[in-house]
């Protein structure tokens, strides 16, 4: 329930008087404002829980065993507890992106002023689709982005408070809160990345961003090496600036791991991407980095301990990860440099300019003294080291990716390195194997002897999808003739070899889907070459179009992927965005065949990003590790009610058609993932021609990867016109066997009007003439 005072406040913040679009029903929403939308979604896509822990240990009543029908001392049951933990994970993830946004905006305002304009170039007029959609504000300046972040932060407080003992208890309400936070995560990510683009002049309004070097083998270890790790480019861009000012850009290597690497290559194409998060420990142990500059998120918390093992030094540059280090921001640079070089001290430096100067100076002085620390383990040395193994198999038991490490080490001891290489390609880089080993087998160093040291290529992140591209592909996506948009996102906790991302991405690019990538997934997509030595980024066009392969950038650039779906509703279908969340999410759910794939999702951020996709109507396919997130959103196609409103007749129609079938699902193998992706791209709005194309890929992938026609094919064929010509005879026989009957085909399917909402069916019809 909104009070008049709050509404007035909102109107002031979003400048409601501006007439770029009428203000919709939910400006700057609280949880209850979109609760009915969530409950409608979750009526079809019910939360499916796989508890990772049977207990609750959050308060001093506990520990409480919640097994089965047990309730905790506060009254919570196991389903409520799962919803609670999911909401908490989303809060943590969203707080990271929003905290990143808050920091980077503050930093840029300090440098450029609050009124610094947001201009994303001639190709991007809808600059911030999420902020327009959720807040109802058209941000013009860095100061406006700050307002968006402040709103998101205030909502976070409310949701986080609901996790306290004796607050929310209902699992679906916890899910609604998680969905709310997921939505706001995309607001925070968008604010962060748009600020970075305008503040650092990252590429925008262009598709063909530079191709940059990728791989640990791309780093010239003969030069002084600065490694940046994390997600926030404030320090790394200062390093590049300092090197440019001093004429040192070609004399010092700047390389990165995880998203800071992607951000840095958006700033300088001379910077190198070492690789994803899973190669962090591996690379630090090579000793190649003289100086490690850590910012925030996904940095090993034992970074200084690991650095000391190889004589590297660490500069922590974020208040979010001070790591117990002495803060020296106000000390003279040369004094800090001296202590770092001579005493190998690590420091916290929150002045990014100073951190950059110190990093460069230390790297220059330290590098000649550390030449001997950059020597890689040879196969002969690895064979010798492997002999320490007593085959106790503690390493195998500790490995979260279930790798046969002891067996691999045994073979290495006999000079056979194939299995060790196989393990490295599947290693997620946690280092638990070494921790568990009582005999000092140096697994991560041994991997140096089997890792490929070749150089791959990655396209630098390009930021938002251009409005001009949306105009071109809007119709084919909505009608289904471009079979889908497939976004490979998230971390590198992959279940099998790292090349699986490149293989899946290429399969869909070949099939003329639009392939979009971000974060660690964007890097690993470049880590596979074809027989001509080309990576996916060199083989496929960088356009947001059929068969294109687009790297949007880092984690926070994920907002541009969901932003593209929003823009399709706005730019192609003319639906107003302004504070009009339900109508747009409903459009995306029923018409935009987009699917997210987080094959190696690890973090709370990934949980939050995926949940934000789900509230917007975008299904997500997850790899097997993600079952540990505890929750999926699944339907049961045979049993569930697939009734929607026909926007044209305003009558309820049982479509009998489970599209999209799930909102969030974990699958075990790459093969099943690809079939599931193709299936989840189907939408009720597909034209017969579009559905034919989508079914062609679904059937073809199923036949190749699983065998035979998909057993649920009859659910997705509405009329004979949907049947792909190539498979017609076979499919007709199958349909006869199944006793298939025609289903209704709707050109304006919508959930609006099927539940209590401020959004009206007229709002859907009015804008959706196309």
């Amino acid at each position: 329930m909104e009070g008049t005072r709050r509404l007035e406040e909102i109107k002031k913040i979003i400048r409601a008087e501006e007439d770029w679009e009428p203000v919709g029903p939910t400006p700057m929403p609280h949880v209850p404002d979109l609760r009915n939308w969530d409950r409608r979604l979750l009526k079809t896509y019910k939360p499916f829980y796989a508890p990772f822990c049977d207990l609750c240990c959050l308060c001093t009543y506990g520990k409480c065993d919640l097994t089965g029908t047990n309730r905790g001392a506060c009254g919570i049951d196991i389903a409520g507890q799962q919803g609670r933990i999911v909401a908490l994970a989303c809060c943590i993830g969203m707080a990271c992106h929003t905290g990143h946004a808050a920091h980077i905006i503050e930093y840029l305002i300090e440098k450029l002023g609050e009124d610094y304009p947001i201009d994303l170039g001639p190709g991007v007029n809808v600059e911030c689709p999420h902020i327009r959609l959720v807040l109802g504000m058209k941000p013009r300046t860095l100061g406006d982005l700050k307002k968006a972040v402040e709103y998101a932060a205030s909502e976070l407080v409310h949701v986080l408070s609901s996790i306290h003992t004796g607050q929310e208890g209902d699992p679906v309400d916890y899910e609604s809160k998680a969905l709310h936070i997921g939505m706001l995560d995309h607001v925070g990510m968008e604010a962060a990345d748009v600020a970075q683009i305008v503040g650092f002049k990252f590429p925008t309004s262009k598709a063909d961003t530079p191709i940059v070097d990728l791989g640990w083998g791309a780093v010239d270890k003969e030069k002084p090496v600065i490694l940046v790790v994390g997600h926030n480019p404030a320090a790394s861009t200062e390093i590049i600036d300092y090197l440019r000012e001093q004429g040192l850009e070609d004399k010092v290597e700047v390389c990165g791991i995880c998203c800071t690497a992607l951000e840095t290559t958006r700033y300088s194409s001379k910077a190198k991407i070492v690789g994803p998060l899973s190669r962090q420990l591996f690379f630090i142990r090579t000793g190649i980095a003289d100086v490690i500059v850590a910012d925030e998120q996904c940095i090993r918390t034992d970074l200084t301990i690991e650095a000391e093992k190889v004589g590297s030094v660490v500069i922590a540059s974020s208040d979010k990860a001070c790591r117990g280090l002495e803060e020296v921001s106000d000390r003279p640079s040369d004094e800090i440099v001296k202590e770092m070089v001579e005493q190998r001290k690590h420091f916290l430096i929150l002045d990014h300019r100073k951190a950059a100067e110190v990093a460069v100076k230390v790297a220059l002085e330290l590098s000649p003294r550390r030449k001997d620390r950059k020597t890689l383990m040879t196969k002969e040395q690895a064979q010798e080291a492997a002999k320490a193994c007593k085959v106790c198999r503690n390493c195998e038991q500790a490995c979260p990716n279930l790798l046969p490490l002891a067996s691999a080490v045994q073979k290495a001891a006999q000079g056979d390195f194939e299995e060790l290489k196989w393990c490295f390609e599947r290693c997620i880089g946690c280092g638990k194997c070494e921790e568990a080993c009582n005999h000092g087998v140096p697994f991560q160093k041994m991997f140096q002897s089997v890792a490929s040291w070749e150089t791959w290529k990655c396209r630098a992140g390009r930021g938002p999808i251009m409005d001009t591209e949306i105009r071109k592909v809007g119709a084919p996506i909505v009608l289904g003739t471009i079979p889908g948009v497939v976004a490979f996102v998230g971390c590198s906790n992959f279940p099998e070899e790292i090349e699986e991302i490149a293989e899946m991405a290429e399969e869909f690019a070949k099939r003329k889907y639009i392939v979009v990538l971000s974060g660690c997934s964007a890097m690993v997509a470049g880590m596979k070459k074809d027989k001509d030595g080309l990576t996916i980024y060199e083989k496929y066009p960088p356009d947001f179009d059929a068969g294109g392969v687009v790297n949007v950038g880092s984690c926070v650039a994920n907002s541009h992927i969901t932003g593209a779906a929003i823009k399709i509703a706005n730019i192609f279908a003319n639906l107003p965005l302004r504070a009009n969340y339900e109508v747009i999410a409903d459009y995306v759910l029923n018409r935009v065949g987009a699917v997210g794939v987080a094959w190696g999702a690890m973090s709370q951020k990934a949980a939050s990003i995926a949940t934000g996709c789900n509230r917007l109507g975008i299904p997500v396919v997850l790899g097997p590790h993600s079952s540990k997130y505890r929750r999926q959103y699944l339907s049961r196609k045979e049993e569930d009610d697939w009734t929607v409103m026909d926007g044209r007749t305003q009558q309820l129609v049982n479509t009998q058609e489970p599209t999209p079938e799930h909102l969030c699902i974990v699958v075990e193998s790459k093969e099943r993932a690809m079939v599931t992706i193709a299936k989840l791209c189907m939408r009720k709005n597909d034209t017969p021609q579009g559905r034919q194309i989508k079914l062609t890929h679904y059937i073809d992938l199923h036949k190749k990867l699983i065998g035979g026609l998909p057993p649920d094919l009859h659910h997705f064929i509405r009329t004979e016109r949907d049947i792909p010509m190539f498979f017609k005879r076979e499919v007709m026989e199958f349909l006869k066997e199944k006793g298939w009957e025609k289903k209704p085909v709707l050109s304006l399917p919508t959930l609006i009007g099927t539940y209590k909402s401020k959004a009206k069916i007229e709002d859907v019809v009015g804008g959706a003439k196309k």
Partner: protein
Amino acid sequence: MTMPYHKVNVLTGFKSAAEMKDPKALAKIIKRAERPLLVIGPRALNIKIGDKLFLEYLVEIAKAGNIPICATAHTKGKIEELGLVPDSTYDIMEILNHLKDPEWKGVKGEGNHDLVIFGGFRTDLGNQGLSTLKHFAPHLKTMTLCKFYYPHATFSLPNFRKDEEWKALLEGLIEELKAS
């Protein structure tokens, strides 16, 4: 309480699987079930026990016990090569989602299953799936035939250090099922 082989599956509660080493006892549980189901995962395609695939053992168990099969992931083709047509091909989470519902009609349309046997999954994913059934499907019992202990199952094999022991158990189970 038995510790699972992979530490990622360490139990954080109190209700854990009964460890089963005797093929006769396992066969008895299977025979007693009115509507058992065997759910096969993709690791069964790669794990070798001696010169045979784990999948071959699972198919033999299905044949010997006349147990319907749900082929998950991409296991269907190989199961068919081994001479059995799977009764269903849901993916792992989809079949679990059905099994949770006591009113579900089962893969044969005869009612939900009362015993669900699993083999061939990643141990972490498998244990997560079994957690779902332990908490939300009190109407059924679960059994695992993989080499490692699954705490969330109702009945689990122990951690076998040697494949020979595992092989002997699986062969014993097949014999017992055939004998009925």
